[in-house]
């Protein structure tokens, strides 16, 4: 009787969010995969019947460079973000509680500011008439006719800029739990600052590093606004192609094949981490 009541109470509390996500998250994701095997109709909708034609179209080697570029941009972004965030998280966890709150707020504010506005800010900063270009020309760092905008460098810079908080926040959460007494112990035993950082601190926040890396990598994979706004014609990412197929070509099945591909690329690193964590846990037990 009591377990019955417990169980119905559980269903009552779980059902609203479960049903919402089922209808508006799971079913749409399945629909995308199904649509990948459907023919397109002329009105931008989806026709009847089944076809493998779209999948074959997308297996075209022309898509390989885009896929490769997407993974390459995301990989570089992840590495740079980690390299900057590790020392920063280390520092944030070491300072006093007030300074810690201030630093956290300083990281969160640009993160919460409108995404488009942050890209726009970089666009005007890198603009040929913009302040950064003028400053660098004045310092003779770049030639007079240098273009800072519309190239792969600009895409990477803005990717790093927008993804950085995604790395800092999980790493800070891990560093906060780290026992800094271990560092003193390492120093007492004769380790230098670099050695104690790399051999004691980095292994200590390993889990934070993994979740930061996955977060940044996965979020970068799906970007399309950044390459569209600060990149050139040859800096398109997988997301740019998806948006193009949906809005310019109005070909939903084609976009679905690409989206299903992106889903796979996103799921693979997450599965690796999930399996690795399972495996790691078992190892720790035995």
């Amino acid at each position: 009787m009591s377990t019955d009541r417990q169980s119905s109470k559980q269903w009552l509390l779980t059902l609203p969010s479960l049903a919402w996500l089922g209808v508006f998250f799971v079913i749409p994701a399945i629909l995308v995969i199904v649509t990948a095997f459907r023919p397109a109709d002329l009105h931008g909708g989806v026709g009847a019947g089944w076809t493998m034609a779209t999948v074959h179209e997308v297996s075209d080697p022309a898509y390989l460079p885009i896929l490769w570029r997407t993974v390459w941009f995301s990989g570089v972004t992840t590495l740079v973000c980690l390299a900057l965030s590790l020392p920063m998280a280390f520092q944030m966890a070491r300072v006093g509680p007030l300074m810690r709150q201030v630093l956290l707020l300083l990281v969160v504010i640009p993160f919460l500011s409108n995404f488009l506005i942050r890209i726009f800010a970089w666009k005007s900063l890198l603009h040929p008439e913009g302040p950064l270009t003028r400053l660098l020309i004045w310092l003779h760092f770049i030639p007079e006719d240098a273009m800072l905008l519309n190239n792969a460098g600009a895409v990477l810079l803005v990717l790093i800029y927008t993804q950085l908080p995604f790395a800092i926040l999980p790493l800070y959460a891990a560093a906060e739990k780290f026992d800094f007494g271990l560092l003193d112990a390492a120093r007492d035993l004769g380790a230098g600052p670099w050695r104690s950082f790399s051999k004691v601190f980095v292994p200590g926040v390993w889990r934070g590093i993994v979740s930061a890396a996955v977060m940044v990598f996965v979020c970068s994979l799906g970007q399309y606004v950044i390459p569209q706004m600060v990149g050139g014609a040859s800096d398109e990412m997988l997301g740019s192609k998806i948006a193009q197929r949906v809005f310019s070509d109005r070909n939903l099945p084609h976009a679905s094949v690409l989206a299903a591909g992106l889903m796979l690329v996103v799921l693979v690193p997450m599965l690796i981490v999930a399996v690795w964590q399972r495996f790691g846990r078992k190892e720790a037990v035995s």
Partner: protein
Amino acid sequence: MRRSWLPSLITLAVIVFLFAPLVVLVANSFNASRFGGEWEGFTWNWYEKLWEADEVWESLWITVKIALSASFTAMILGTLAAYALHRFRSWLQDVHSLLITLPLVMPDILMGMSLLALFVLTGVETGLLTIWIAHVTFCLSFVTMVVLGRLQDFDFTLIDAARDLGATRVQALKKVLLPLLLPGVLAGGLLAFTLSIDDYVITFFVSGPGTTTLPLRVASMMKTSRSLPVINALSTLLIASTFILAALSFRLQRRA
């Protein structure tokens, strides 16, 4: 003990990197120069132009309407979800927790694209309703996470204490759990509100005619160079309001 100066230097550099574009943006909103390459004197001109841009204010009103209704819905669904996740351990909650986590790592473009596929295939006209649905969907997980964090800190013996002192179940929930949980719920709602106001990618996919939210408006303004300084002015106001909302949310989460 000697401490290396390198981590503090990198921290400083990262903060400068994070704020430099925003500072230049705010400065340029008062700059008479159109491209902001150099300082040509102080002006309110761009703010006056912004004040006269009726379509911006219309978009702001649409955005606020959606953000309020979506964050309110997400707040209720997310709080229930967090409570269920915290209270029960079962296969149902394993599935539930997986479903709550997945949207957090789903790229925006995939979420937008798959919702569009749903609306196209079921013949639902895109508009305010579809934007609201999309926003509730991506806000739900964030609210759940914030409230769940709050619940994990909550001392459930307080409820037993209230019951021992003669409170009914409903009284205990209303007078003990709810007031202590409320800051977390509000912080989650506030986060949902900021996320909803900010969203461009997902909204772009599921918006229809007459539902140009503020980010969509900004994106279309960015295409014409005439309105660029006006975006600086608008951005400055938005950054200022983000600052206030973030500070407010911080206070809410820290209050015991």
